[in-house]
């Protein structure tokens, strides 16, 4: 019961750390008008491992955190993260989900899909200016490469942080077995 509360808290703190690192990299990339998006990585690992209630407790605050840091309607990231979490949770039974490689693939895929959905939402809201498509493609390629690069570290960080909080890998998966 305690781990049910501790688990989301640990993963949320890891998510905030990832956001901080991404924000610092974006600060330096701004010189070239580039931007990294790592929202998919925040959702994918949690959605692959934990039970649905825990996924909700993780994705909702992390989505709102990103909403407060961006010029998007408040709740947009949260809604997309929840939707991504639910979809990954539904399909995870048909794919391997414990090993790091599947976590990386899920993170890169979820990140790219979320990036495209957000771009479509913005394109619908207002006129798209010339040059935006090129910027989006460069940002998508960079974000995917970055997520693929740091996903193994981020997954290991979450697993280790959960262990330090008294929730070992067996317990994490054990909780999901009740689902």
């Amino acid at each position: 019961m305690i781990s049910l509360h501790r688990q989301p808290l640990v993963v949320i703190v890891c998510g905030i750390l990832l956001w901080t690192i991404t924000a610092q990299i974006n600060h330096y990339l701004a010189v070239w008008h580039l931007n990294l998006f790592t929202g998919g990585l925040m959702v994918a690992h949690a959605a692959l491992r934990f039970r649905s209630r825990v996924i909700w407790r993780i994705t909702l605050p992390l989505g709102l955190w990103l909403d407060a840091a961006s010029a998007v309607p408040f709740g947009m990231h949260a809604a997309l993260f929840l939707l991504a979490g639910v979809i990954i949770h539904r399909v995870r039974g048909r794919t391997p989900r414990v090993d790091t490689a599947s976590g990386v693939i899920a993170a890169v895929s979820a990140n790219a899909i979320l990036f495209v959905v957000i771009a479509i939402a913005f394109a619908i809201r207002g006129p798209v200016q010339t040059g935006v498509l090129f910027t989006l493609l460069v940002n998508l390629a960079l974000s995917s490469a970055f997520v693929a690069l740091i996903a193994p570290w981020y997954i290991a960080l979450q697993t280790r942080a959960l262990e330090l909080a008294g929730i070992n890998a067996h317990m994490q998966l054990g909780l999901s077995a009740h689902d």
Partner: protein
Amino acid sequence: MQFKRFDQTKPFIVLAIVFAAWMFLPFAAKRLARHAFFEFQAPIDVSAATIRTFQDYWAMRTRNPNDLIEAGQEIARLNSFYENKIREAKTLEGEIARLEALLNLPVFNEYRHEAARVVRRDYNAWWQRITIRKGRNYGITVGSPVIFAGGVVGRVSEVGLYTSVVDLLSSPGVRLSAVIETDGKHRPVNFQGRSSSAFSNATGSLEFVPLDIFIASGEAPRVVTSGLGGVFPPGLSLGVIRKLEPDSDGLFQSAEVSLDSRLASLMEVTVLVPLAPKEPPKGGAR
């Protein structure tokens, strides 16, 4: 079988109910939640900026002392130059105030200059904004104009307790009234920020450019703020016209404005905090 099907769709039904509930949530509650999250982020941004400042400090410590002596001498020269300029500006300000009172002209807003350090830059295809290390604790208000050595930076869009967010001039949502300076004349136009392409300079666009404006070789017309609207003081640089295209109606032209390249690497900006307007002098012209 039916139960299994319901079990499969249950998470999506719950999600739809949550989305509907969120849409009907009062605006004040969403605003409060946004502010709460924003305030939690402020210490992280400020701490990261402080670490960067320390990095810069230690990087400078490795510099050759002769470089520092030369830089100090250069700063002393600049200080002397600017002190002279400040004296000149004060004399001119006095002269402008005297003429304004004499002709009974409307007085422009007065501002308090608040220098602030940039803690985070966030430029993507949809928005360009910076976070600065001053907020309500320094009296910064939403809508305050922000400037730097190269002209206008943008407008404050969000104010927290210790930090504020500034929408950059190149952000597509930023619109302001401007004038084109050409042959000593001021031609009013509408300026709007436009998304910048990766690896290129920030740009804006102009609407309602008169047909007699053109780009002479080697002398691009300058675009500055008009002072209309009361947000930005007049005469602040926005950029230079790079390209002109006739509109479909043939009555006006559209222009692409090249903004200052330093906008992409801002480290220090100045917020113009509007002061309470003074009472107009009684008795009209003297």
